């Protein structure tokens, strides 16, 4: 093994970390699984699984309602998790942390509530060309309803946002900017701080889709000065069905509620209802209590390893993957941004991603194939889709070696 391979430079104890994730020791198609699809959903450590199990065994009661001790305990556990989220993204206060089902719901909430209040005919919403469908369609829905227009800031051939074009598009008609932090297909890390400064110079708020950023790097919503930041629990090693929307208090207070129901009200009469304070105004109904507690455990787990150590390890893993994949004749990387998270999208000659993915599956290697819910981005590059390998801190050099061997074998069969 070469001196520069990630295991030798890493401060992380990968063997110990892998033991924390029970799924990683299973087989797929008769071979030890190589899981390279964490960008779609990451695996869960024992501490998350145990936190959920413990909650259902010993702590469960509805939150924010009961006077009895058990309900108080559940409420405390729930609100402690909210504080953990606040710390994780360095938000100013816990009431600015809204629990949602995931990024998709986070964006839909803002599109719907911000849009209802602030969008009118002829206004514009500005997104980028690398957005996931979940940061396109909610805006299309509200734009259609309000007679507003969706504008798309272009990217270059490397898959990076063209910042000058973006700045030019910040006209006085733009009411909000919605952008991804990290592209799920290309791995491109967007210059959020610069984008926010440009938008704020025109008085335009910015929503950031943090689904692909939060598993890989430390997030500070105050340093970034974003108005909204949303991420999904299941991509940060937590449970599915839970996510977070951070919003600056002034915006959350100015927006109407999303769903109506219990918990989100102050007083209800048949004539007029007044709404609860933040965050409850946006959390109608019984929340996903177990999900929130599981998410809290996941954030504890990540913090314990340390996001800076994670970023460093994954960067070496990414560099090693690109170096080794270059051995494959005819390989073409889609997305070559200078600033990139641990995602590698590629094609080999004219081989269809579905064919390559099918053979890799048979070899025990889980990758994502297809358009990754970014059809407009695929159209931009004139390709039907890509093969995407995405890494988390539990992946190893050996995983990448098996991927490269697998791709070579698949190419030999298909080429």
């Amino acid at each position, binding site marked *: 093994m070469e001196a520069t391979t990630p295991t030798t430079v890493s401060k992380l104890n990968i063997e110990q970390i892998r033991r924390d994730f029970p799924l990683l020791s299973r087989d797929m198609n008769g071979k030890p699984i190589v899981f390279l699809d964490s960008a779609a959903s990451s695996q869960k450590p024992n501490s998350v699984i145990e936190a959920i199990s413990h909650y259902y065994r010993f702590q469960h009661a509805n939150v924010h309602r009961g006077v009895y001790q058990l309900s108080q305990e559940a409420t405390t556990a729930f609100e402690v998790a909210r504080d953990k989220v606040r710390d994780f993204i360095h938000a100013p206060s816990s009431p600015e942390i809204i629990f949602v089902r995931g990024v998709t719901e986070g964006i839909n909430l803002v599109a719907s509530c911000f849009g209802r209040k602030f969008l009118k005919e002829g206004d514009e919403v500005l997104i980028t060309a690398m957005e996931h469908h979940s940061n396109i369609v909610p805006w299309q829905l509200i734009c259609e309803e309000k007679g507003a227009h969706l504008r798309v800031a272009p990217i270059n051939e490397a898959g990076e946002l063209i910042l000058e074009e973006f700045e030019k598009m910040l006209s006085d008609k733009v009411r909000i900017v919605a952008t991804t932090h990290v592209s799920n297909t290309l791995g491109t890390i967007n210059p959020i701080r610069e984008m926010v400064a440009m938008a704020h110079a025109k008085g335009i708020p910015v929503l950031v889709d943090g689904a692909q950023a939060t598993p890989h790097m430390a997030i500070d919503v105050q340093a970034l000065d974003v108005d909204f930041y949303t991420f999904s629990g299941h991509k940060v090693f937590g449970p599915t069905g839970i996510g977070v929307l951070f919003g600056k208090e002034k915006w959350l207070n100015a927006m109407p509620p999303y769903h109506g129901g219990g918990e989100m009200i102050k007083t209800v009469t048949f004539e007029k209802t007044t709404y609860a304070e933040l965050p409850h105004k946006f959390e109608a109904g019984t929340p996903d209590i177990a999900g929130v507690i599981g998410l809290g455990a996941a954030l504890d787990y990540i913090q314990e390893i340390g996001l800076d150590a994670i970023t460093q390890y994954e960067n070496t893993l990414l560099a090693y993957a690109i170096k080794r994949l270059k051995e494959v004749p005819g390989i073409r990387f889609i997305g070559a941004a200078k600033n990139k998270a641990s995602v590698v999208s590629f094609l080999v000659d004219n081989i269809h991603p579905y064919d390559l993915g*099918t053979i890799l599956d*048979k070899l025990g290697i889980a990758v994502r194939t297809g358009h990754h819910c970014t059809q407009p981005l695929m159209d931009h590059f004139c390709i039907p889709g890509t093969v995407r390998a995405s890494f988390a801190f539990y992946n190893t050099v050996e995983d990448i070696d098996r991927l490269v061997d697998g791709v070579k074998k698949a190419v030999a*069969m298909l080429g």
Partner: protein
Amino acid sequence: MSINEIQDEIIEEFALFGDWMERYEYIIDLGKSLPLIGEQYKDEEHLIKGCQSQVWLHAEKDNGRVKFTADSDAIITKGIIALLIRVLSNQSPDDVAKAELYFIDRIGLKEHLSPTRSNGLVSMVKQMKLYGLALQAN
């Protein structure tokens, strides 16, 4: 040969293969070798869109039998299409409509016909049977 006789024949052929690699090499060869559809039919009208791969399907009636031609942009999908056409083409519309396809499962390729796979094949089989029904009448 009837639909089931052809299915049994394919199952026997596949029994000769040692492992998944041999099966897939055969499917890939099928996918590479066959021009399965006329270029004029590779249009929107004949397209069955999957998330992963796309399929084009055309059917016509010839001497009381349904003739299918089809294609895909992915080779493995195309190889499976070749098998489906071998089973269902040149059969009576009634037989096509009533066909029970068990061979895919028996030759170890059932995951390709899983609805979650989204490669266009499930919709294609459905469409082939609908053609069978539609062509019974005329």
